[in-house]
């Protein structure tokens, strides 16, 4: 295992120290990352969290127009209720707190436990479950939350910044999740610092289809084909679940070790696929937003926009991972 770390045990702490040192607009305390100006009286606050190893998610999305606090767990391990509880209490400005929870057993359970303990704070939650690679059925834990988390946090964050009440922020957050779908493809596995070796083995000429963001193997393994064909596989899966129509927000996301050049190659294919279906990419992100340690590969996330959502997407945001308008 080759990593820029001190020890596997200290990696999350060390990275948080770096985050705090690099971003004066953030405060880090007891494994929670806060906006330095929290709590904002009268504003609905957003709290998210999840395992570490997905940077910039979530801590990199703390700031004006997005999250008020993020709770990073250990690598690929959801945070504990104490973190969520601390965060929720600290950022509540009297208007209540929205928990943005990715749909994993661990995340859901820990956020639930924290919410039960948050007496005195009005808490709502949105469960993000956008990954079409997983069937949502009685026989699974349901769809995973992946790329749409960024969309939910950005758009709900903008709405909260505008002063909307908790119920409205929660409703729009759920709406964004409902309009969003993702699909991921891995060229390599990832290596968790504690495990010290790749989570799975992938021969040099194969890719994993339908991977999540924790190095879980995907649903199927197929030969490595061109970016065009891989993009089509991802887009067909998305289109088959939620037909591509109208104005779309599209993110082509790198899994952590994917060069930006390759992500742009994929984006070109995705955009032309979308046009082929008669829809339009009106907003986009290309880069590393929801990563999986040092995995090579990409995911595509698509959200069907309307005018309101477009306006909220365009609203100013100032976080380490996403910034415009200020």
């Amino acid at each position, binding site marked *: 295992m080759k990593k820029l770390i001190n020890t596997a045990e200290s990696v999350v702490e060390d990275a948080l120290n770096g985050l705090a040192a690099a971003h004066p607009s953030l405060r880090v305390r007891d494994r929670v990352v806060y906006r330095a100006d929290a709590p904002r009286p009268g504003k609905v606050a957003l709290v998210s969290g999840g395992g570490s190893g997905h940077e910039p998610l979530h801590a990199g999305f703390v700031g004006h127009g997005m999250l008020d606090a993020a709770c990073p767990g250990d690598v690929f391990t959801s945070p504990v209720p104490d973190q969520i509880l601390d965060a929720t209490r600290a950022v509540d400005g009297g208007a209540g707190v929205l928990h943005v929870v990715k749909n994993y057993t661990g995340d859901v359970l820990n956020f639930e436990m924290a919410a039960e303990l948050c007496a005195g704070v009005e808490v709502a939650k949105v469960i993000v479950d956008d990954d079409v690679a997983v069937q949502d059925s009685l026989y699974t834990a349901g769809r995973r939350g992946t790329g749409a988390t960024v969309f939910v946090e950005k758009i709900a964050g903008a709405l909260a910044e505008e002063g909307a009440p908790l119920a409205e922020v929660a409703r729009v957050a759920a709406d964004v999740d409902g309009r969003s779908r993702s699909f991921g493809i891995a060229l390599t596995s990832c290596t968790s610092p*504690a495990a010290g070796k790749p989570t799975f083995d992938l021969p040099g000429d194969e890719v994993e289809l339908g991977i999540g963001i924790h190095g879980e193997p995907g649903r199927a393994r197929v030969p490595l084909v061109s970016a065009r064909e891989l993009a089509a596989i991802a887009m067909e899966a998305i289109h088959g679940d939620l037909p591509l129509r109208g104005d779309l927000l599209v993110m082509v996301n790198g899994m952590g070790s994917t060069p930006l050049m390759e992500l742009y190659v994929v984006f070109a294919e995705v955009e032309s696929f979308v046009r082929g279906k008669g829809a339009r990419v009106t907003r986009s992100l290309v880069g590393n937003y929801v990563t999986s340690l040092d995995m090579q590969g990409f995911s595509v996330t698509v959200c069907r926009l309307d005018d309101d959502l477009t306006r909220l997407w365009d609203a100013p945001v100032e976080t380490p991972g996403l910034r415009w308008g200020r």
Partner: protein
Amino acid sequence: MGGMGELMDRGTGEGMDTAFFLAWFEDAGRLVRLQRDRLTALDAAIGDADHGANLDRGFTEVRQAFAEWPPATPVQALVSAGTTLIRRVGGASGPLYGSAFRQMGKSMDSPVTLAVFAAAFESGVRAVERLGKAAQGDKTMLDALVPASRELTRAVQEEIAAREAFERAARAAEEGSRATIPLRARRGRASYLGERSVGHEDPGAASAAIIMAALAAVAS
């Protein structure tokens, strides 16, 4: 394990005391540390390769919690361990194991006879089922915990000695864990794999078997 045997000898008569439960967690922690890499490898195959690290961290924290606030009763030991696992582990297994031990503690009468233990244990297992919305056969820790609980209840009915009962429970857990191999996962992270989860032992079932093995060991 001479000391443990003594504890248990006492336990058979007047109930299992606090030291017995401390020893159980101590030994579970020791075994988890030893098997940490195996648990992580199992989780790598159908999950996210953190189960060994999660539980190792959890039991280390439990040991520390016991050192800082030495429990005075079995109930305190179980509730403290459960709370610590919930507060320190994260992931799916933290709240699930944590709630199991907390619930077990809360349902524990005194003195702790085998019958009392078995009933409390079952109540702990029920907590996992409730929280995880899962049942035996879903390829989770429940595939080890449910058969173990059943053995304990049967042992009480058949008036078998605690030591022997724990042995049987450990065996049942171990068999239950191995029985997850051919199953297709329906809960937790492994469920994302669909058919590809078949052929692998569930890491949580394996760790449950380890915890039950520790119980049998401290009683022997």
